[in-house]
């Protein structure tokens, strides 16, 4: 009986590392790249809008920058929603 409980404790200890949170560098790096790209688009859009308002950029460039920014924001929001949804799915898992 005593031996069995020791073995069980050992097994639990052996399993523990599997449940420990680990940061996989690949995923976060990709997300960071996406984030910086998004920030660049946003900044570019803002600068072009500013230039357009002061008459330094033409209307086509303004529309292009705004469309790009809109799509970048939409992409970011959609991906965020997807990630949050995935976390919620994990949280709903019966333990």
């Amino acid at each position, binding site marked *: 009986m005593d031996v069995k409980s020791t073995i069980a404790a050992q097994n639990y200890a052996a399993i523990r590392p599997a449940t420990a949170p680990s940061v996989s560098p690949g995923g976060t790096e990709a997300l960071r790249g996406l984030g910086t790209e998004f920030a660049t688009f946003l900044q570019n859009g803002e600068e072009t809008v500013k230039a357009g308002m002061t008459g330094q950029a033409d209307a*086509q460039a303004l529309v*292009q920058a705004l*469309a790009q920014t809109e799509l970048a924001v*939409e992409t970011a929001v*959609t991906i965020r929603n*997807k990630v949050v949804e995935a976390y919620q799915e994990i949280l709903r898992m019966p333990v």
Partner: protein
Amino acid sequence: MSELFKSFQISASAMQAQAQRIRHVTENIANADTPGYRRKVTSFENVVSQGMTEGMIRTAPVTLDRSPLTQIYDPSHPLADDSGYYEGSNVNSIVEIADAREAQRSYEANLKMFDQARQMSKGLLELLRR
């Protein structure tokens, strides 16, 4: 996604070029009665960045139409010579209107392509949403 963004850039550059073309046409029509005015001819060229063409276009340096100026008979005009003629412009309204219409059609086509690329990328994102 960056391919679609590239087509945004290309169609925006084409729209920009057509806008410049229509500006030159406007200048020609505005100066139709200016003595000695030669009409401006717009031509296009590829944008080359780092030795590569990426499909974007821009207007080439403007050239002047070398066709002979019209001779207008008006002895009372201050610019008239001994025989009573002076040189008008070589602007032909029909040519200018045709050019303007062509610019408009090209602008519309590029606008459609812009919208097409936008709708495609929106459709792609729509997949993730459900």
